[in-house]
């Protein structure tokens, strides 16, 4: 089986470490040959850094990739932003000899060289195509009877020219991975819409980002679910911290947000506290109680 190195990025280790913990549990339980990518930096975040200067974006992204090339492992990302940044940079450098040479001249300053020998993976796409729904079904120890609103996020699937996943408008990979855990993925309007955070909008134009988030949360509210499931800590933060900001403005939603790694770890028998669901910015104690009740069944 494929060997991988886990790329943590910024938000997972530094804001939502429960996702880091949960991912380790999942990779271990599924018998995957993995290790953390030691010494990695920010991917760097495409909305800001690719926007400012493409050569810098490529240089920093390629340094992260070469760390994994040295280990002869594919890079596994657990964030749509890291995936978008590293996968797009990797493809650009593999396909464009001029950019590759320019980037390698920067990398030579630190004694590194981009060879183009590995691929960048996203955990959803990786679990679906390398591990498979069947193996996950055989590995989990309990079914989670939850109604969930799935949020794919943008860069897992787009730009489709740089992605292996099948459909952009009506994908099913993520839904299948969630439903095999016993959950019902509830359909809702604008399911494929953006959370609002990307492109540097959250960091500089927070109110615009929040307006997009509020629109999406409104649709999810109508679907009457137990929680939102995503596969990106930036979407996670936007929905989680975003609900705290919206509540301060008097718009209360109260919809807990969890990353797929956390959901999978729950079905592997771990408690919500084991994987930090109680460490979200918004109060998730009712949801944690519900999960602990489910566990007793």
């Amino acid at each position, binding site marked *: 089986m494929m060997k991988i190195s886990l790329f943590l990025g910024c938000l997972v280790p*530094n804001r939502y470490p429960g996702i880091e913990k949960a991912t380790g549990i999942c990779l271990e339980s599924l018998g995957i040959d993995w290790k953390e990518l030691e*010494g990695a930096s920010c991917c*760097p975040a495409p909305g800001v850094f690719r926007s*400012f200067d493409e050569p*810098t974006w490529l240089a*920093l992204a390629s340094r992260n990739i070469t760390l994994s090339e040295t280990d002869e492992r594919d890079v596994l990302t657990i964030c749509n932003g890291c995936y978008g940044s590293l996968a797009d940079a990797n493809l650009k450098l593999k396909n464009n000899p001029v950019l590759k040479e320019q980037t390698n001249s920067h990398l030579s300053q630190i004694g590194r060289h981009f060879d183009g020998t590995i691929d960048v993976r996203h955990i959803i796409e990786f679990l679906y195509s390398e591990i498979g729904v069947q193996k996950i079904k055989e590995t989990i120890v309990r079914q989670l009877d939850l109604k969930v609103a799935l949020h794919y996020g943008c860069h897992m699937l787009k730009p489709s020219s740089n992605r292996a996943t099948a459909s*952009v408008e009506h994908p099913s990979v993520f839904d299948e991975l969630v439903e095999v855990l016993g959950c019902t993925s509830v359909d809702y309007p604008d399911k494929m819409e953006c959370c609002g955070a*990307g492109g540097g*909008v959250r960091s500089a*134009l927070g109110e615009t980002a929040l307006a997009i988030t509020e629109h999406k949360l409104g649709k999810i509210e109508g679907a009457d679910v137990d929680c939102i499931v995503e596969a990106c800590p930036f979407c996670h933060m936007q929905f989680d911290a975003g609900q705290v900001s919206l509540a301060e403005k008097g718009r209360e939603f109260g919809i807990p947000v969890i990353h797929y790694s956390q959901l999978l770890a729950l079905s592997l028998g771990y408690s919500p506290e084991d994987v930090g669901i109680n460490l979200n910015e918004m109060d998730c104690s009712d949801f944690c109680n519900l999960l602990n009740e489910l566990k007793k069944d």
Partner: protein
Amino acid sequence: MAGAPSIEEVIEDFNVLKCMQCGVCSGSCPSGRQASLNVRRLVRKIGRDHAAISDESLWMCTTCYNCQERCPRGIAIVDAILAVRSIAAHEGLILERHRQVANLLQEHGHAVPIDDAHKEKRMQLGLNSLPSTVHSHPDDLKDVKLLLASCGFGDITGGKE
């Protein structure tokens, strides 16, 4: 060296002049629904003149790629927006908050570095207080800083290298 394309290169490389102003892009845009970004107009503006670089709606795009996926003329709209942003950044047009994020990257190697509250959360989960990233590897952080200096990144953002 750091580098941004010229507006002429953006127009050429991303087929901007093929736009027929059909509005499929703006009709698909989540940001356009909530803010003043009108991507159909932005594409026209990019095709017409350099003034597009100071259009504040450039920075309202979440890079969701809806428009680019659906454009019937196959225009790489998001790639064009990112390239025009880089021209703007090279001319010093950077939003203050973005400049701060750039400075965080230059100082810590992370756009979102660890803080005490989250070290605490990590330990509560049984993880090391610092992750295995550059936060635990000063030599790697040094490499990141050397790379940023090699790219001249500090000159663009006006921050430290």
